[in-house]
């Protein structure tokens, strides 16, 4: 895992979460542009998975590979599922769902970093 990608991903999650929180305050449902935002976060996550796989294969594996890839798998599925689940609801509660999902991914990524470095 690379530190710049971690910082970028957490920043993007916070931005997406903030956008969703703003929509909660405005009593609005999730819009398609927010799902595109989620897709960007997912893209960075995939980039993280690829760099982690490359570094593992080239002799720098995570401290606990099973735990790491378990967390990675969870992190990768959260946003797609949450996006579909949120988008089916056309009230402000969909924005709360997106907020919860964005914060969860940010937290999972932080945990991924901890596991990667063995902290």
């Amino acid at each position, binding site marked *: 895992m690379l530190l710049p990608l971690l910082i970028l991903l957490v920043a993007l999650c916070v931005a997406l979460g903030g956008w969703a929180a703003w929509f909660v305050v405005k009593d609005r449902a999730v819009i398609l542009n927010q799902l595109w935002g989620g897709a960007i976060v997912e893209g960075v996550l995939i980039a993280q998975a690829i760099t982690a796989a490359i570094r593992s294969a080239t002799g720098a594996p995570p401290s606990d590979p099973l735990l790491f890839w378990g967390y990675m798998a969870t992190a990768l599925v959260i946003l797609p599922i*949450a996006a579909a689940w949120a988008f089916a609801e056309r009230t402000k509660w969909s924005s709360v769902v997106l907020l919860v999902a964005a914060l969860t991914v940010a937290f999972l990524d932080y945990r991924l970093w901890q596991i990667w470095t063995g902290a």
Partner: protein
Amino acid sequence: MSGAVGDAGRGATRPPAAARSTGAGFGRVLVTVYGVLAFAALGRSSYELVTKFAEAPVAYSLSALAAVVYVVATVALALGASPRWRKTAWGAVGVEAAGVLAVGSASLANRDVFGESTVWSLYGQGYGYVPLVLPFVGLWWLWHTRGPAAHGARGPHPSDGSEETTA
């Protein structure tokens, strides 16, 4: 006011008088948090069962039980529009509430009672006490969305101004 007849037409856009879906509105958030916890518990439990089950069979069995309960609760709440899933949800959320209170209290009395910590140890401290709060929010939500048939009274709906008597 007795505008039940006049409200009937507008009422078409409201949920019917039956029990409301547990997966819509606020319920969508509840299911999301349940889903996240289900993933967390399932991941943790799978990892424990694969790598170190023999070290603390009781603790890791409890974590596995918790994971199954969270998965069932998530699915049942998501599909809670039907009476059968609603009953399943009551059961799963009830077991969860009892589990976190029992295991939490036992672990508080004696930290090493199960050998290792579980999802429910110290009332779910390792998960920000979400496992402690969630079942009670779940029970409240199931009660809140109940239909008139189940309890003899119509489910409260703050934004629904019509006053119907329970005939």
